[in-house]
């Protein structure tokens, strides 16, 4: 019922060119440098139920009013993959199309598909011809690996006639900056050499590294833990969990505790005045005891079953 209407709407286009739907798409793709900018009509053309081609359609909302930050982030990746496909051999290239549909060009399509969020990528398998797929439902890309082009190309390659010839572009900017750093470093090497030869510079670096690492910094990096929790909570519940701020607090607590020991070992015995030495010894012992109590009480929050406590 809808079909004749669609054909009617497409009539001017197809009449003018007197081309089959496939040829039109090929032309559109060539015009867009491998990427078809869709609107409602061309979408229906591309996703027509009788097709001997496959298509990867990218749904997005790039209009600044839509405030879709992920869309902006993902758009270059999809374009890069589509451009890479334009370099595929001609006989394969025309069996698969890359297209993008902006929300503002196709409200109706978004509504029809029930898409509530953008960006999204659907891959429509061919329904006719030698490559026809048994599956009718489009494959939906799941963004599990983020918005990068590499994984996208890899996943879409499963659905294209031949793997997408996508290669990550060489990062000239980074290579250039590294190359330019070499003379700079060799120039200032003379000035930083005494710094590099100072053992306490290295000691500071070593201590900082081990403090940060033993405070769970890598956990927050790998898991992408937030800096603080909801409602300003800064201690994550649970033994195997933590927020970014905990790294700072715990590293500081460890640092103070280690520092108090160092003061007692190195500085205090060197004092030549008895009163000053006594004050220092008491002070650092008190700091040590207090910080350790705080540490234990923090640990009790993370592990409520822990039976021991000091004064806190």
């Amino acid at each position: 019922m809808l079909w004749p209407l669609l054909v009617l709407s497409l009539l001017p286009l197809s009449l003018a060119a007197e081309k089959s739907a496939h040829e039109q798409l090929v032309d559109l793709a060539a015009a867009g440098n491998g990427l078809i900018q869709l609107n409602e009509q061309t979408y229906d053309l591309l996703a027509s139920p009788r097709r001997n081609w496959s298509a990867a359609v990218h749904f997005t909302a790039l209009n600044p009013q839509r405030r879709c930050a992920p869309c902006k982030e993902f758009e270059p990746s999809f374009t890069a993959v589509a451009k890479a496909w334009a370099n595929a051999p001609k006989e394969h290239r025309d069996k698969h199309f890359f297209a993008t549909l902006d929300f503002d060009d196709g409200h109706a399509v978004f509504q029809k598909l029930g898409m509530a969020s953008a960006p999204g990528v659907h891959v429509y398998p061919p329904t006719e011809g030698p490559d026809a797929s048994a599956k009718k439902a489009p494959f939906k890309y799941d963004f599990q690996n983020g918005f990068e082009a590499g994984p996208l190309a890899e996943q879409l390659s499963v659905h294209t006639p031949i793997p997408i010839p996508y290669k990550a572009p060489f990062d000239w900017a980074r290579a250039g900056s590294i190359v330019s750093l070499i003379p700079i470093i060799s120039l200032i090497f003379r000035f930083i050499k005494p710094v590099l030869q100072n053992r306490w510079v290295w000691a500071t670096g070593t201590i900082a590294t081990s403090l940060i690492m033993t405070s769970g910094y890598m956990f927050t990096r790998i898991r992408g833990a937030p800096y603080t929790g909801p409602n300003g909570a800064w201690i994550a519940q649970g033994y195997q969990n933590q927020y970014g701020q905990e790294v700072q607090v715990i590293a500081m607590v460890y640092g103070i505790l280690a520092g108090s020991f160092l003061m007692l070992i190195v500085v205090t015995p060197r004092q030549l005045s008895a009163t000053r030495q006594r004050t220092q010894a008491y002070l650092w012992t008190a700091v040590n005891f207090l910080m350790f109590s705080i540490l234990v009480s923090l640990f009790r929050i993370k592990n409520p079953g822990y039976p021991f406590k000091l004064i806190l």
Partner: protein
Amino acid sequence: MPAAYPLPSDLSPATVTNTASLLRIIALALISGAAIASRLFAVINFESIIHEFDPWFNYRATKVLASQGFYEFWNWFDPTAWYPLGRVVGGTIYPGLMATSGVIYNLLHALNLPVDIRNICVLLAPGFSALTAWATYMFTKELKDESAGLLAAAFIGIVPGYISRSVAGSYDNEAIAIFLLMFTFFAWIKALKQGSAFWGTIAAVFYFYMVAAWGGYAFITNMIPLHALVLLLMGRFTGRLYVAYSSWYAIGTLSSMQVPFVGFQPVRTSEHMAALGVFGLLQIVAFAQLVRAHVSSKQFQELLFAAVISVGLIGFFGIVGLTYKGWIAPWTGRFYSLWDTGYAKKYIPIIASVSEHQPTAWPSFFMDLHFLIFLFPAGVVMCFRTLRDEHVFVIIYAVVASYFAGVMVRLMLTLTPVVCVSAAVALSSLMDAYLDPSEPNVEDDKNGSSTPHSTGTTPSTALATSKKTKKNKEKEASAPAGGVLGELVSNVTSSAVAAKSATTAERGVFGMDTRLIVLLNSLGLLLFFVVHCTWVTSNAYSSPSVVLSSTSPDGSKNIIDDFREAYHWLRQNTAEDAVVMSWWDYGYQIAGMADRPTLVDNNTWNNTHIATVGKAMSSPEDIAYPILRKHDVSYVLIIFGGLIGYSGDDINKFLWMVRIAQGVWPDEIQEPNYFNRGEYRVDSEAAPAMRDSLMYKMSYYRFAELFGGQQPVDRVRGQHVPIQGPTLDYLEEAYTSENWIVRIYEVKKDDVLGRDLKIANAFDQGKKRKRTKPMSRRKSISA
């Protein structure tokens, strides 16, 4: 010079030395006793049983070794693992652990002590922990002195970070590997200090033992070259370094290649290239040094310098080029994922799925290392103060290991020794400063610094006796006591203690109260540490995980023995060649306890095979059934914790099965299909793919019947499962253990009338046959 407390002066130096060494021996013996005893919680609370998963395989292999001899073990092909592929066991394991217990077994039997091989396996780890304490003592002694050594030994003896991998019954490679690690490092330090090829060879022999025992040997393979390289960059190249490194590398590499599992890796993989590169670099530098000693021309020396650098660069690019060409294998995934932390999750989910490969949150550090974790940086600073060659080693070790421990929970094990060592250095420095009875002489501090050694003599002899009264204190206290003695004895014998010798008179502590407050605080910390370690060991690390226990509200203990119950059922009630399919975690246990062939096990070498099991578990019945039949599977075993709240069950691991299957069949299995709007649910809102999956059906089959019409509750997920439970057509329930933790299903054979089982089932239940064609897929299988 005044003393803070009186000391007897009628003791000869010989008496002091003898008493000190006797006390050291006693302290070490007590530390060994404590180390072994604290690991026996598992045996006392449960029984003498092999723990967890991997140890079951090691135990099975050791049994083969003990009963059939070494050559049978060496050539052992196990047809029951990885059915139908089988596994060449001799060439795919590190045989050091089994060989060790085999030797002990044969030794005891030669002495007419008929000890069961199981008890040797169970008690091997505690036994070796005593040796680890000794090796740590020797290592720390090289860094500072005996007192620090005893402290370090005491720390590593009871620290939970090491106990977690070495309780009785935890019969795994790590059980002996940490001793080998520490002893190799000790031998390396010794070789480096003395420039001794003998100690270099000892290091190489223990390195070989380590290679034969644990895959973590790569840590040594890279730590020692890194140390050598840093020394080189610091301008500390000496003949001693050259001799030590060359003898270690040449003998160690050649011998490590004798292990079949390692083979030619030392010259073919990137993990080993650092060692080779540094070896080459040392040769070049040594040669240049030699030439330079014989020529005087300045120009020639400059030419030499340039030649060394260019040869080094050529070698470096040569290795890079060979890697690029594929002659040298690049980093393996497990190793690479330590640097690129997102790598494993993307490309090798099977590595990322293992719980001990997760990153470490700070509570784990505190739980495992307690107060050592903040003494550790202080100890590293003390190392920087002295900074001899061996201190450089500890510093590098500290940085590298704390990074690794942050990335992977299991690498906490490699961090633990260095934490113990440097914490011991810090604490013993503190004790040195505050136990020394000499007070600084403020009145005439100009003259005070005249004879530091002679002033040390009198107080030290006295301290020896005053300490004897405290001897019957507990072990922790005896360690510092022995330590102080060691320190003072070294003063008596005028042996060089670098940090102290010159500055004794200028630094010192006034009065008794200052000493007492600091020492009491430290003693309190030590006592708290002991209590903490005992609590953690008994509560967290002593569960065999084969046998579970729960505590009732009245405090009585309930033993949950479902695993052994179910494995025993399999052993008694199924055909000997009946293939059992389960997730890979349980492969070793099924092989070890039920003695049945398995599809996949914990030796995760074949990703596709594991993905096949994952696909079968996550597909609907009619897709899974052909897979099961193709692999001759007779029984499917799953773990279900929903009834008693056992959270380590298969539904919680299910997403990993999906992910691993998705890695191989991306268009058939897709992870998002198992979520309902991003939520992982098992209740009536569960995603259709989830509800239809074999795993879900097997888990909740007849679950509702337990609740007698009430809404059934899954205690792990805390969700209400639908009253109308799933039905099974292609499988039937064979066995469910007492607490429903283990459920075993039998795979139905083909219908006798050649019908599809679904239709046959419907017919049996008297349902009218639907007008659908039988699946064509079924036909192709039975054909």
